[in-house]
């Protein structure tokens, strides 16, 4: 047991504290809601205590949302046509494969 752990226990503080680098390793699973309850508590504790990490996570999530938005019109747009020559090629390939 390292000194940090024993300090936490002596303080009656049940949630271990982690540094920013360890916090960072949890981000992907946090966003996927894949953290175990205990891990989530540790993650949130750091999030509350560390303003730079809170800011980092906000920007990180914003950046994901921006990349989603950059592709959002692919689904909404009027349907893209498939070139006639490609339709013919696909159907011809099927004929010859039979």
């Amino acid at each position, binding site marked *: 047991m390292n000194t940090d752990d024993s300090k936490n226990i002596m303080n009656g503080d049940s949630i271990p504290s982690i*540094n*920013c*680098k*360890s916090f*960072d390793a949890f*981000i*992907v*699973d946090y966003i*996927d809601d894949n953290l175990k309850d205990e891990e989530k508590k540790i993650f949130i504790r750091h999030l509350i205590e*560390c303003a*730079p*990490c809170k800011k*980092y996570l906000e*920007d*990180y999530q*914003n*950046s*994901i*949302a*921006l*990349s*989603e*938005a*950059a*592709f*959002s*019109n*692919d689904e909404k747009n009027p*349907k*893209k*046509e*498939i*070139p006639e020559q*490609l*339709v013919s*090629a*696909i*159907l011809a*390939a*099927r004929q010859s*494969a039979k």
Partner: protein
Amino acid sequence: MDLSRNIDIIDLPEDQLIEKLKNGDPASFEFIVREYGGYMLTIAKRYLGSEADAQDAVQDAYAQAFRGINNFQGRSSLKSWLHRIVVNASLMKLRTYKRRPIDLIDDIPSLFDSNGKRIETAAEVTLSIEEVAIDSRQRALIRQQIDALPETAKNLLLLRDIEGYSTIEVSELLGISVSSVKTGLHRARQALKKKLEIQQR
């Protein structure tokens, strides 16, 4: 093409369309080529960039779909089944065309000091999602930044964040471990975030 027959197919519930496909009905095959072909091209182009390569991938994808239709269990929609097939065909093409070694993002400066404490920067992502949604130039800029990422990073972002595949599905599609998907995705997101920060200076 016999239009009256195609209108019938449009009205068919999907399970009946799939039945017809399994029975080898040519009009149903033509229908799914015309109905989903444009969408499949859009997806293939994300991965391959060029229209010609995307068309090749779509042709490969339909060949696989025709061969595999009898194994289609109907657990997903026809569209998502085809989506996965064209993603796979595109990734296969990338493998045969480029043969680049797995590229790592190594130009991200360390985010932490020697004690593992985050190094604060003044950089910020200030692009607004509302503006991006209505401004096609901003969307194009973000897409260029994603395109400019190393290939694996770009594919991880497309598969996980844009197309919504799960970590396990992505690990199957790319043939890499679940933990490689997670660490690679994290680095790819960090790299994109950094590019978007630089972008608005």
